[in-house]
């Protein structure tokens, strides 16, 4: 298969289930909502070395937020439920609560609820108070600019982590330009994030290492400097590769992200698009590139 003379390899990306929460952060202005979300997603790149993977979902207009102020959606993924709860408490408490004028609400409808605001409230040191509106409890925590409002419980559900594709270019500039286009295309979609810096990963990894204690190491097959030392997966004329990693709320969201990202990345100077998998042993979700690009339905 080819798109704009870019070869799409007949391979698949392998993804796995992850625990997921979605926050809605609001503030007096879009700037402060975005700022809070940006800091709350800090160092949330890969569960290989971070407690979670997180990214901004979509900006929200006043009509789409619970308190009628500008907001932003934020997706956060963790390997374990307990780990996700812990990091949610930390990130809301440290990054959202501290940002001027913010409030934080649940953005995921789910039967499974985690009491996050109920723990963040202890920052109030006994001066916090709660309000039940409808069937939902909120906590009001006094701050120096008024009070921080946080929902008591947040929905938790299973999402999909580790969707990916690789962009193999003739040179680094072309590969990076294509990767930037792919990241922008994914950024425009709801329900899916690319958690690496700028949405792009320069260091595709493989599980394990020759050094004990390391959970992952560089994927040598995609490193141009190692093409003569290992079984390379780079075409002869490829000088650089970038990986796009995607986490989504559903299989369909990841599939949509991969489809739009790959299509956007098929630019001049790109030789081929590949994907990372471990022979189907890593996770139950398999995204076959050809099927994703041919059909609307996800391929699992």
């Amino acid at each position: 298969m080819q798109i704009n003379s870019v070869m799409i390899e007949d391979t698949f990306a392998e993804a796995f289930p992850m625990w997921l929460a979605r926050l809605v952060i609001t503030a007096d202005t879009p700037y402060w909502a975005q700022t809070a979300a940006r800091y709350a997603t800090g160092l949330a790149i890969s569960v290989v070395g971070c407690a979670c993977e997180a990214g901004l979902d979509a900006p929200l207009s006043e009509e789409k937020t619970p308190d009628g102020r500008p907001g932003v959606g934020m997706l956060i993924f963790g390997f374990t439920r307990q780990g996700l709860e812990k990091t949610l408490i930390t990130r809301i408490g440290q990054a959202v609560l501290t940002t001027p004028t913010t409030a934080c609400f649940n953005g995921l409808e789910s039967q499974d609820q985690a009491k996050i605001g109920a723990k963040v409230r202890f920052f109030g040191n006994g001066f916090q108070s709660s309000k039940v509106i409808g069937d939902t409890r909120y906590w009001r925590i006094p701050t120096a600019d008024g009070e921080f409002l946080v929902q008591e419980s947040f929905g938790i559900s299973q999402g999909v982590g580790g969707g990916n594709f690789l962009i193999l270019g003739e040179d680094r500039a072309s590969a990076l330009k294509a990767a930037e286009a792919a990241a922008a295309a994914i950024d425009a979609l709801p329900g899916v994030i690319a958690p690496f810096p700028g949405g792009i990963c320069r260091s595709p990894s493989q599980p394990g290492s020759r050094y004990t204690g390391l959970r992952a190491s560089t994927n040598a097959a995609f490193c141009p400097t190692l093409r003569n030392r290992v079984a390379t997966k780079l075409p002869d004329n490829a000088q650089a590769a970038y990986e796009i990693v995607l986490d989504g709320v559903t299989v369909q969201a990841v599939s949509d992200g991969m489809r739009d990202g790959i299509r956007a990345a098929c630019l001049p100077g790109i030789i081929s698009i590949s994907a990372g998998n471990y022979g189907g042993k890593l996770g139950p979700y398999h995204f076959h590139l050809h099927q994703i690009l041919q059909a609307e339905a996800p391929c699992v």
Partner: protein
Amino acid sequence: MRVSLEFRLAESLPVNASSLTPDLVLGMPETELHKTCLDYGNTTRELGSLCRISYDAGVEDSLLFCGDTHFLHRAGFHMSGGRLEIDGPIGPLAGAEMSGGELLVKGDADDGLGLAMTGGRIRVEGNAGNRLGGAYLGKSHGMSGGTIIVTGNAGTEAGMRMHRGLVAVGGDAGDLAGLEMRAGTLLITGDIGRSCGLGMQRGSIVGGRCVEVLPGFTRDCCMDWHWLRLLFDHLNKNGVIVPVGWQHCVFSRYSGDATGISRGEILLYETEC
């Protein structure tokens, strides 16, 4: 199916309707329903002799009281589910000790509406009497859950010793609103009478104008309150239109009552801070 009870009372005497909850009536055979005994004045009568019973299969499950409804007291008493509609004014203690379900009054409600209720929703399309959502005399806890919405005015002691939940009054409230309030939210979009929040411990009284703010309350600050945005949005969805300007949620906060633990608040509307 809707069961309609059209009350036609020969004498102007109160009827204790506490046994006529939706879950009981809807599950009861017609003959048994006719023979259900109710207190009528100081006597006891069968329901069939006090009202005309009819069934409407084409409507969602509910119980309807109509006719001489203002003689009924304790309507919806202790109800835990289902829907009870009252087409007309209702007597005292409607929805008292209610724990679930929905009570709709298309008319005025007498004293003690939602007294000591623990859950469910009450909506009154008219005025409510005294001690709305309050406590029985001598009891420490008033309403401890659920929502009461009154589109008209409320009498004295609205939200008295209220412990949790929401009471929203679309008009004015009499004296002693939020008397000895423990927690919860009491919203009055009109004018509030004297001695509002007297002995208040926790909770929020939100209002437009207050005849007086007691000396036990101290002004803290003025700002837009984010939780009020949620509250007003919730009320709008339930048919309570908050006054023009309130959507900006700019209110002054008075904390008190200093005669107690001083953790309550009165939020009064301001056009600007």
